[in-house]
């Protein structure tokens, strides 16, 4: 379906490389190579940043250390707000990894001129504009909140399915499927849509006109990273708390 977008009406103008992938064949698996390349780039970027920040730790932080500490504080406060003062600590790495990876992925897609590098097929873009990436992140979140629930409440975790009333059991079960689904599709859809809009606009009017959309894209990208991390933390909190009463569903974008 997506490849239909490929040749919209401007077949003769240029192609938007949606649905084209740079395939790597590993055994029976076909991997989307361009996603791996950009993911590795993002991971390397984060690793280098962490390394630079922790290379020469000072008591009074400056430069990179200061910046990364600020980022860490931000993530900590995010996790603390969602999970609560008592339980948030062990979840900071997970939530922080989600946020940083998604954020840097999104922004790398929006800011780095990937198109300078030409692949045999497909094109480099944000890793998060591939559904596989976002689904894997969302499934990890599901695993995380199941783990949180079981480790905190043991088999009592299942009580949350029939907690207010057993009538809601089907919905409660359904929720376990909709959570990763909505997480992954929200992120994937936002990023892909943003890149598509920018791509189309660039094809139509190459100069200056796409700029506001690109700026908006940066904003949405940041918000999406925040939303993903926040919702993951909220799900973890909910699994640990039980009483699925208060839902933190704020559907952004």
């Amino acid at each position, binding site marked *: 379906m997506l490849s239909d977008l490929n040749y919209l009406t401007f077949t*003769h*103008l*240029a*192609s938007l490389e949606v649905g084209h992938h740079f395939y790597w064949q590993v055994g029976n698996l076909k991997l989307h190579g361009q996603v791996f390349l950009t993911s590795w780039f993002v991971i390397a970027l984060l690793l280098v940043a962490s390394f630079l920040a922790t290379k020469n730790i000072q*008591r*009074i*932080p*400056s430069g990179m250390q*200061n*910046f990364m*500490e*600020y980022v860490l504080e931000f993530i900590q406060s995010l996790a603390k707000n969602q999970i609560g003062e008592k339980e948030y600590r062990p979840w900071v790495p997970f939530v922080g990894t989600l946020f940083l990876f998604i954020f840097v992925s999104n922004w790398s897609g*929006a*800011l*780095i*001129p990937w*198109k*300078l*590098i*030409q*692949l*045999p*097929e497909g094109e480099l873009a944000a890793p998060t504009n591939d559904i596989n990436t976002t689904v894997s992140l969302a499934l990890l979140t599901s695993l995380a909140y199941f783990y949180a629930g079981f480790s905190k409440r043991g088999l009592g975790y299942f009580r949350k399915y029939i907690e207010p009333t057993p009538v809601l059991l089907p919905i409660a079960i359904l929720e376990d499927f909709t959570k990763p689904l909505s997480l992954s599709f929200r992120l994937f859809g936002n990023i892909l849509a943003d890149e598509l809009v*920018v791509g189309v606009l*660039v*094809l139509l009017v*190459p*100069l*200056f006109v*796409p*700029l506001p959309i*690109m*700026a908006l894209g*940066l904003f949405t990208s940041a918000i999406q990273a925040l939303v993903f991390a926040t919702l993951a933390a909220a799900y973890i909190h909910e699994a640990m708390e039980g009483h699925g009463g208060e839902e933190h569903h704020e559907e952004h974008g």
Partner: protein
Amino acid sequence: MGMMETFFLLATEAHSEAAESGGFGLNFDLLETNLINLAILIGVIFYLGRKIVTNILIERRKRILEEIGEAEGRQRQAAEALADQQQKLAQAQAEAERIRKEAEATALAAKESILAQGAKEVENLRKKASEDLNTETERVLAELRQRVTELAIQRVESQLTSVLDESAQQELVNNSIALLGGNQ
């Protein structure tokens, strides 16, 4: 319209080139790679973001510096207080030691004086006792003497009454007279 056509031409050319090459490569087409827009966007973000981020970081650094300064001040105060109290403790210990020594000395003196006093008292008592003993002995002796004397006198008297009858008295008197003038 002419410009638009050039665009189309450029774009199709670039696209066909890319499609033809089919391998890794670099694409320096300014328009197709969106380089200009990205450069502007990155520039703007750097220009705006740099200031904000720098401000935040400077603020943070300043806050940390202040907090560390405060903490260090508190630490210094605490160290000072600790030294102060330690000094006081040492003083108190010295005082305690002094008091203990003094007390020991006092105790010793008291002990000695009490011992001396006791010894003196014992001595006094002994003296008094011996005195008492002496006087008692003397009294008893005197009593005994008197009693003995009395008994002797009694005995003598009784014997006298039995022994000294008229003739004996006569004889005695005679003897005495004889003694007085026996030589004549």
